């Protein structure tokens, strides 16, 4: 892979993130409600409010606030949580690890199942397998996470009788069994919509590849169907599949907000909802920025993987 390509892509990611910091800052500073009053309570004296405003630098012009904030980020300092009285880095850091564990479990499981499933449906086009996957994927993309989660809870986590706990979190490095039990339902909720989407995209990419001239040419060379599929068709439909997965990470990052809230999973999503309810600006900013960064980096990663899979991109 050419370095020029990589550097161009990296530069684009940095540019996107710069715009994101600006957007996040703009949105959060126009949030209604004075942060100082929210911390001190409705009945604080004006002097106390003014003092805190100074301390939080809320009295300064916005561009100064932005520069202060952005230079803090550059040093890894996201400020203090207004509600929790802890450094944002610490609060967000813990939540990030928990979310990452959930998201990775869901994504890996789904990818492993969805790609072969989609490919199979494309190969067996028009058969029962294809039809079933079609139905399933439409259903999956039409159920909001909170409905799936609620239905899963009703059927699989009824108090005393259900096989799974209704919520909470056990780290995998503490107890693998406990983690498995707790992660199953949230991961299944996230997985359903992702799986539906990824399998459908893989199927459509694979169908397109299978109807291409070079697949026809490969078959007319007398190659075995096995080689046509494995050597000619599958690798060529992988690059678009990777692109779809990286886009789906966007859905996933949105999905964890609701799923964590429902299953009481102590991750970024839950933290974000808490911070939004309490107008905890530094936390909101940090979480948003973090999620956007993860998304942008996953897109970069997918571009690199695609370049490795497809020689046309590699030498472009």
């Amino acid at each position, binding site marked *: 892979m050419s370095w020029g390509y990589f550097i161009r892509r990296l530069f684009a990611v940095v540019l996107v993130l710069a715009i994101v910091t600006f957007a996040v800052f703009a949105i959060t500073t126009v949030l209604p409600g004075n942060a100082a009053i929210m911390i001190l309570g409705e009945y604080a004296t004006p002097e106390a409010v003014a003092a805190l405003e100074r301390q939080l630098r809320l009295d300064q012009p916005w561009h100064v606030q932005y520069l202060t904030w952005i230079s803090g980020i550059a040093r890894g300092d996201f400020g203090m949580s207004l509600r929790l009285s802890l450094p944002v880095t610490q609060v967000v850091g813990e939540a990030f690890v928990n979310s990452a564990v959930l998201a990775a479990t869901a994504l890996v499981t789904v990818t492993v199942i969805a790609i072969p499933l989609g490919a199979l449906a494309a190969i067996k086009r028009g058969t029962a397998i294809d039809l079933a996957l079609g139905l399933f994927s439409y259903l999956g993309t039409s159920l909001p996470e909170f409905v799936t989660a609620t239905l899963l809870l009703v059927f699989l986590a009824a108090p005393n009788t259900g096989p799974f706990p209704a919520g909470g979190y056990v780290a995998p490095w503490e107890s693998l069994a406990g983690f498995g039990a707790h992660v199953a339902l949230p991961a299944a909720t996230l997985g359903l919509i992702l799986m539906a989407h990824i399998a459908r995209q893989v199927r459509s990419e694979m169908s397109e590849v299978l109807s*291409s*001239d*070079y*697949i*026809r*040419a*490969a*078959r*007319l*060379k*007398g*190659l*075995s*169907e096995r*080689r046509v599929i494995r*050597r*000619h068709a599958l*690798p*060529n439909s992988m690059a678009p599949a990777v692109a779809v997965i990286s886009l789906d990470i966007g859905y996933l990052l949105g999905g964890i907000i609701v799923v964590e809230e429902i299953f009481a999973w102590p991750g970024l999503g839950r933290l974000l909802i808490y911070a939004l309810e309490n107008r905890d600006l530094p936390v909101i900013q940090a979480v948003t920025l973090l999620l956007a960064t993860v998304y942008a980096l996953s897109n970069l990663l997918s571009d690199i993987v695609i370049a490795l*899979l*497809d*020689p*046309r991109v590699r*030498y472009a």
Partner: protein
Amino acid sequence: MTSLAPNVIEAAAEKQKPALSIRNYSLAYNTLNGPVSALKNIDLTIGKGQTVGLVGESGSGKSSMAWSIMRYLPPNALETGGAIRLAGEELLDYTPRQMADIRGRRMSMVFQDPSTSLNPTIRLGEQIAEVLMRHQGLTAAQAWVEAEAALARTGITRPKEMLRRFPHEASGGEKQRVVIATAFACEPELIIFDEPTTALDILTARQILDLFNRLREETNVSALYISHDLGLVSRVVDEVSVIHRGAIVESGSVAQVFRRPTDAYTRHLIGAVPNPDRWIGVERPSHPESLIRLEKIGVRYNSPSLFQKLFKPAAAEKSTFWGARDVSLDIRKGELLGVVGESGSGKSTIAKVLAGLEDFEGNLDVGGKALTSRKEIDRAYRRNVQIVFQHPDASLNPRQKIGTIIGRPLKLYGIVPRDKITARVAELLEMVRLPADYANRHPHQLSGGEKQRVAIARAFAAEPSLVICDEVTAALDVSVQAAVADLLVKLQKDTGTACVFITHDLNLIRQLAHRIAVMQHGRLVDFFDRDDARADDRHPYTKALLDAVPVQEAVEAQN
């Protein structure tokens, strides 16, 4: 049956059998509106070592024939009878598994467009080698050695290096050689060539044809050569069959079919082949008078960025790609000027400059006024210079009715009063030999040739002094091409409009043009009077182009 070595007696018997024999074969496709017949009672025989041409226009069923022979038909195909025998063996009886063993080993295929028929993510070497591994049981290492030899036979100078490349790293001609090497790799009995030169440039196509002729002699393979181009087929085949609407209307030796055609359609096809010696253009204007002069016209693509210009001027100059450079020529009133070149030669760039679609450097002199940039082109100029594009499908807005499309220039330039537009549109439709009620149709209800007539009518509606025809016949079938060329000449006669006719078809242009400009790599390399086309002082490139498309059997038959 499939891989047993035939014993001596069988071999002797097989000598008598033709390589391929098709008897009374019919094919239909199931559609929503019931079965649609694609091939009707086809009879076709290819003897050992013989090459048979199958000639037809688009939709004639010639490609269906290839798929039928290869037993590669879509699920909705319905074979309604007949026999297809490869060296006497009935292919229709074979299972898909048996067919997979025959394809690539005993019969193979060369496709129209090498850029889509090669897998973009697999090295060219592997794409040849895999056939040898599949059918001859070679190891990967042995297969690559064989592949190199196979590629060397196609005349590629450094085959070893080529094997390591990916398809996008090779030129069209090189890719087609790889496809041909693959087809010949297992020394098959029969090869089907499906328009193998159509997607290639003139000179490359010529090389591929020569290669085909050479390999055919060396290997004594039997071949079916499918093409729409009667002239081209006459140079490579022994026998020819003409297919029309799914039925073979004429077959026989080349000489017989071309000199004594019995079928009306065949005669029509032969008549439509352009003959450079038969002049059909308008009379040369008696007093040459300049209409537009191009002076040192240049067009740059991917101009360097400001950053490059400031910091790396040398690299910036290198990265500039010139679509056209230093092109100077004049267009005379009432003449037909031919512009010829291969793809990427800059001939279409010149069309775009003239039509005011491309930023340019240099001067465009019109009636004593010099235009120095695209911005200076005004509506009066635009009315005077109209353009017709190559693809009629793309040049008509699919959401507008034909009447609206043709009426638009009338309205825009105020050529006739508003209440007369409908009447004028009807006249224009009649001028291009279309029924007046077509005004109420949408483009998708018309055939390709009809759409091109509409595009021509729109250009002439503006009553221009110059019409630019950018490859207007290239996307059309041979017989339609001739009709469109005839129509243009008639309109030129009636209106006295000048015409710049851009094409890659040298034979066609020599029938129409008064003067011919030859372009190569963005430059004008030759500019001459049509009568001097064969003069000795022609540019070597012009000579090469002319030699690539010699006067053919078909054309001689016309005389």
